[in-house]
């Protein structure tokens, strides 16, 4: 019972700290990306952009988005993992105590890895399903759940390929109507696509929205599920 009180409170405070961090970090990311897209468009050769907008996005914009997204999300993951360490230390201290206490704690702190196997694979658009456990690396003592995973990780960050898929899911290269638009409107569309993908709002690209998971929502849900499922 006492174990549960300490760990539960720690996990919920960790969740709130990470969620607050993620929300503002990803919104800042959107602002940065919109500025970077504007820069790249400013540097682009107009006729090439007008003739091959999809190719331009694939070769110029997507890598910028992927790089920035990876950096932002790696930072989120590192901070989340660092904040989890003291809770993990408490859990491991408690786990060294008597079996009844361990079992009692286990009742409360469900196996975090189950969260991944049951219901939290990250879905990055219909074409990029990443079916990995919600909490990447589990330690042998994962019985105490989130508090004892060796390293907290979000599947959206597993490998560069996934991050590239996340960038692609922004839809820059898949937006069918793009090639028919004049170059002057490309920036607006890119801004809308980025906003929709990262924040899930403020975009008129409603036909596209069904295909795109809101990245911020996914990250926040990931953190939320991981914490809530263990308390």
């Amino acid at each position, binding site marked *: *019972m*006492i*174990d*549960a*009180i*300490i760990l*539960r*409170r720690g996990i*919920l*405070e960790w*969740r*709130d*700290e990470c*969620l*607050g961090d993620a*929300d*503002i970090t990803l*919104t*800042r990311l*959107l*602002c940065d990306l*919109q500025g970077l897209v504007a820069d790249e468009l400013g540097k682009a050769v107009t006729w090439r952009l007008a003739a091959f907008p999809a190719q331009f996005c694939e070769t110029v914009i997507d890598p910028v988005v992927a790089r920035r997204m990876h950096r932002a999300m790696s930072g989120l993951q590192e901070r989340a993992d660092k904040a989890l360490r003291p809770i993990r230390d*408490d859990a491991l*201290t*408690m786990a060294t*105590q008597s079996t009844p*206490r361990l079992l009692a704690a286990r009742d409360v702190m469900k196996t975090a890895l189950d969260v991944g196997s049951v219901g939290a694979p990250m879905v990055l658009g219909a074409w990029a399903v990443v079916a990995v456990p919600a909490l990447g690396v589990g330690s042998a003592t994962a019985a105490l759940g989130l508090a004892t995973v060796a390293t907290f990780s979000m599947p959206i960050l597993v490998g560069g390929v996934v991050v590239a898929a996340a960038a692609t899911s922004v839809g820059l290269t898949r937006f069918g109507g793009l090639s028919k638009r004049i170059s002057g409107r490309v920036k607006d569309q890119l801004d809308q696509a980025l*906003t929709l993908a990262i*924040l899930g*709002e*403020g975009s008129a690209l409603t036909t596209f929205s069904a295909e795109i998971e809101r990245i911020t929502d996914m990250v*926040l849900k990931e953190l*939320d599920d991981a*914490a*809530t499922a263990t*308390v």
Partner: protein
Amino acid sequence: MLPPLLFEIPSDLQAKVASGVYRQVGALILNPATGRIVKHLQQTGLAQEFTGHLICGLPNLLSPISMVTQLASAAVTYSQNRAILQGIEMLKILGSGGLILSGLDLGVSLAGFAVTSAKLDRLNRSMSAMDSKLDQIGRRVEDLHDAAVHNDFLALEAVCKQVDDGWMLADPMASWSSAADALYGLQGRFMDRARRGLAFNGPGKAAILERVEGFVDAVLLASSTLISVRTAMGDLTAARVAADRISRDLNQMTAAIGLREVLAAQIEPEGQLTPAGRIDALERLREPAQHQAQRFRLREVQAGSAGPILQDMMAAGVDGRAWLAALRSERRSPFVLVSYDTTNA
């Protein structure tokens, strides 16, 4: 057998709390290495006399934010009363001032009517103030702000009075037993209202969340009085079962309320935001949202503290009624430290 009371904080205990060897969670001082309560803060009859005044002066029932100034003001107000000053000092040293100012009970509730009445009055007034906000919400949430709520507050106040009056009766068992039944019902009804409020999704969620806080406070008031009356009846097992049940139910209900939910509710009235506007709103509203989320954590800890305390009391063979009677008549300090197990310090 009644456990000894400590009126001052032993220096080694203070050092261990400060160094992190012991962990303070709510009113409990815990040893993570043994998983046991080292000591817990317990209010006495003297606390009942002045916390009511403090609660009446607070902007919200739970106001940990204003803890420091409120404590300072309490110290000035009670500067002539050495015992109260000593108790306030104890809270300050342990960084627990917010707990008593929160209106939540420290340790086992003494269910004193004066302080209970002050809490209920505060709750009822804040609920009434919120009604106007709810009226502005297009989709009203049925039964969250109507006469039935007011009537249940009156019923809760009457039952709390009945429990308190029981201490003056030669044989209070029948009265306490009927009060316990009534408290179960009231606790359930307020819990149900809180659940419905949390299930609401739509414009005006921020006002609904404030309302939910009021219902959760009412739940805690009913449950702490119920636990107190069961303890007074000498049935510590029933008290423990009631404490565990309310803790589990509350945890299940409010675990999902965190910064994300509160922030979303508070940002919603600002309408469609640009990314820059969203960043501004997130930064501006994060602190108050965090405070609101923390208040839910504080309540969960409060609800979760009673069970382990009662378990220790049972293990130590404490007579619940004699124990509560001793605490209610205690006037040397408003707060004391209690340990039921001297082997774990």
